[in-house]
C-alpha cells in the first residue's frame, strides 16, 4: 500500500516535471558547512513570468546555477523544460543571463553574440539574423562593432541580456538583469520581459528589486535562508483583500457611519480609508458618497505592496532599515 502510494506520488511528480518550465523537489546545495540552498520546492508554469525574490544570500543565484548546470545539487531533484537538470540538449532551449559575468573584452559586441549563437548550436544560416535582432532588442545596434572592453557595466548587462535571447529560447533565466542599469534601462528590460511573455517564453526573474518584480511577474516565490517562504500568483502572495483611500469633503459623521457596510472605516485629516473592501465595490462606494452629498477629490486603491509582504514574511517591521531595499539611483 505504502509502496503504491509512493509510486503514485512519484508519477505525479514526473507529470508536473514534464509540463512545468521548472520543477524542483527539495533541491539543496551545501558548500562544505555552508548551506546555500535548503530544500527548495517550487513549480514554474510554462509561459509565465516568475519572480524569484529574496534578500542577499537567500540562495537565489545558487538555485539558478543549479538549474543551468554550473553547480551540482547536493540533495533533491529538479527538472527544467521536462528534463533533469544538467541535460545538455535541453540547454539549447534555455537563455541565461548570469549575475556576474563578462564577455571576452577583446571581441566586438557582434562577435561576442555570434560566438554565443554558435555555442547555442543555432544553424549557421540564422545566426547573423539572431545577432542583429538581439542587438536591436537590447538597444545596442549602433554599438555592435565596438569592443566589449569599451562597454560600461550597463551596456555589458544589455549585451548579456541580448545573448540570453539568442535563438528564441523557451525559458529565459535572468539573474538580477537590471542591477547595473539606469531607469531607462530598467524600463527597457521590463518591456523585453513583456515581449518575451507575449511570445510564450517563460521568464525566470531573479531579483531583489521588488517594484520591478511587482510590475512584470505573474507569479512569485519568496525565498529566505534557502527556503521558499511564500509562493503563488501576485494576488495569492499579496493577499486579495485591498483597501481604498479617498479624499472626501462634505460628509458628516452619520453619513460616514452609513458607509460601514463597505469595510472598516477610518478617517484622518480629510482622508477616508476603507479596509477590506472588494475592488469591484469601489465604484459603488464612490457613487454612494456622491449621493450622500460628499465631494470626492481622490480615490487611491491601496494594494499591499510586495515590499510590505516581503518584509512581513521575513519577519521584520516594515519601517526597519533593510539593506535589500530597492536602491533606485533616481
Amino acid at each position: 500500500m505504502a509502496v503504491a502510494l509512493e509510486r503514485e506520488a512519484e508519477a505525479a511528480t514526473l507529470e508536473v516535471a514534464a509540463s512545468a518550465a521548472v520543477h524542483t523537489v527539495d533541491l539543496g546545495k551545501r558548500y562544505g558547512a555552508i548551506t546555500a540552498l535548503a530544500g527548495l520546492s517550487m513549480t514554474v508554469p510554462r509561459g509565465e513570468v516568475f519572480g524569484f525574490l529574496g534578500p542577499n544570500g537567500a540562495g537565489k543565484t545558487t538555485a539558478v546555477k543549479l538549474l543551468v548546470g554550473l553547480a551540482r545539487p547536493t540533495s533533491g531533484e529538479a527538472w527544467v523544460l521536462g528534463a533533469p537538470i544538467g541535460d545538455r540538449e535541453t540547454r539549447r532551449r534555455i537563455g541565461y543571463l548570469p549575475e556576474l559575468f563578462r564577455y571576452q573584452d577583446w571581441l566586438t559586441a557582434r562577435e561576442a553574440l555570434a560566438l554565443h549563437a554558435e555555442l547555442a548550436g543555432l544553424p549557421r544560416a540564422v545566426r547573423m539574423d539572431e545577432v542583429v535582432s538581439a542587438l536591436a532588442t537590447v538597444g545596442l545596434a549602433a554599438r555592435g562593432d565596438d569592443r566589449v572592453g569599451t562597454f560600461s557595466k550597463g551596456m555589458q548587462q544589455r549585451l548579456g541580456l541580448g545573448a540570453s535571447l539568442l535563438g528564441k529560447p523557451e525559458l529565459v533565466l535572468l539573474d538580477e538583469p537590471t542591477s547595473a542599469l539606469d531607469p531607462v534601462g530598467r524600463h527597457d528590460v521590463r518591456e523585453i520581459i513583456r515581449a518575451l511573455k507575449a511570445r510564450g517564453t517563460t521568464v525566470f526573474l531573479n531579483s531583489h528589486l521588488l517594484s520591478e518584480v511587482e510590475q512584470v511577474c505573474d507569479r512569485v516565490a519568496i525565498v529566505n535562508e534557502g527556503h521558499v517562504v511564500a509562493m503563488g500568483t501576485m494576488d495569492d502572495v499579496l493577499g486579495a483583500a485591498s483597501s481604498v483611500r479617498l479624499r472626501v469633503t462634505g460628509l458628516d459623521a452619520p453619513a460616514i457611519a452609513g458607509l460601514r457596510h463597505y469595510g472598516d472605516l477610518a478617517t484622518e485629516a480629510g482622508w477616508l480609508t476603507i479596509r477590506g473592501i472588494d475592488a469591484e465595490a469601489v465604484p459603488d462606494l464612490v457613487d454612494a458618497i456622491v449621493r450622500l452629498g460628499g465631494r470626492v477629490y481622490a480615490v487611491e486603491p491601496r494594494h499591499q505592496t510586495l515590499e510590505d509582504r516581503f518584509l512581513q514574511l521575513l519577519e521584520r517591521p516594515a519601517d526597519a532599515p533593510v539593506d535589500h531595499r530597492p536602491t533606485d539611483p533616481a
Partner: protein
Amino acid sequence: MPLWTIARLTLREVARRRLVVTVFILTAVVLGATAWFFWKAPSFACSNCSTAELYAGVSVLLILVMYMFSFVIALGAVFLAAPIISGDVESGVAQAMLPRPIRRSDFVLGKWLGLAGMLVLYTVVACGLELAIVQLTTGYAPPHAARTVAYLCGEAVVVLTAGLLGSTRMAAMTVGITVAALYGLTWILGILGAVGSALGKPAMTHIGTVSSLILPSDALWRGAIYNLEPAAILAMLTSGPKGAAAANSVFAVAAPPTSAFIVWVALWLAAMLALCVYSFERREL
C-alpha cells in the same frame, strides 16, 4: 562542433593579444642576431679551421641557441596555460559560456587544442628558421633537424598540459609559479640522472628517470639535444672517458629517448588531459 569553436576562439584570443606581436619581434631579433653571429663565427673563432672543426664548434653553439628556444617555448607554454581556464572563471567568461549546450570537455580540450596549435606553429616556424639560418650561414646541418623540432614541440605541449591541469583549479599566478618551478626542477634532476648514468651510479640515474616520468619536459629536450649532435660528439660521449660524458651532461646526451619513453609521453598526455577534463567537470562555478 563546440570543441573547434573553443579552439578557434583560443587561437584568436592569443593572436589578438599584444603577446604575439611582441614574441614575433623578439624572435625576429634573435634570428637576426644569430644569423649575424653564425655568419661571423668562423672569422671570430678559427679562421684556419677545417670544415670538420668548424662544424664541431657550430654544432655545440647550435645546441645552446636551441636551448634558449626550448626555454622560451616552455616558459611561453606556462604563461599561456596558467590563466587559460582560471582567468575565464575569475572574470565570469566561463559562467556565461558553460550554460550553453556544450560539454565541459569541449571547453577544456578546445582551449588545449588552440594553445597547442599556437605553440607547435611557433616552434616549427622559429626553430625551422633558426636551423635554416645556420645551414645558410655556415653550411652545417644537424643530423636530424625534423626530429629535433618534433621533440621541442613535444616539450612545449607537455608543459602546456601541466599548466592546463593547474588552471582548472588554481589561480593563474599559482599555476605559473608551480609549473615553472617544476619545469626547472625536472631540468636539474634530468642533468643529475645523466651524470649518474655517465658515472654508473644507479641511484642518481633513477632520480632522473622518475622525474622524467612525472614531468617529461626535460627528457624531451634531451631528445632534441641528441638529434642535434653530430657523430663526432656522440662518439666522444659514448666511447670517450666517463668523466667527459659526465662533465658534458648539461648540454650533451649520449643516448636517444627509448621508444618506451615516447609511448609513456603519449600516455602521460592522454592521462593528463583526462585529468584536466575530470578536474574541471567537478569544479563548481
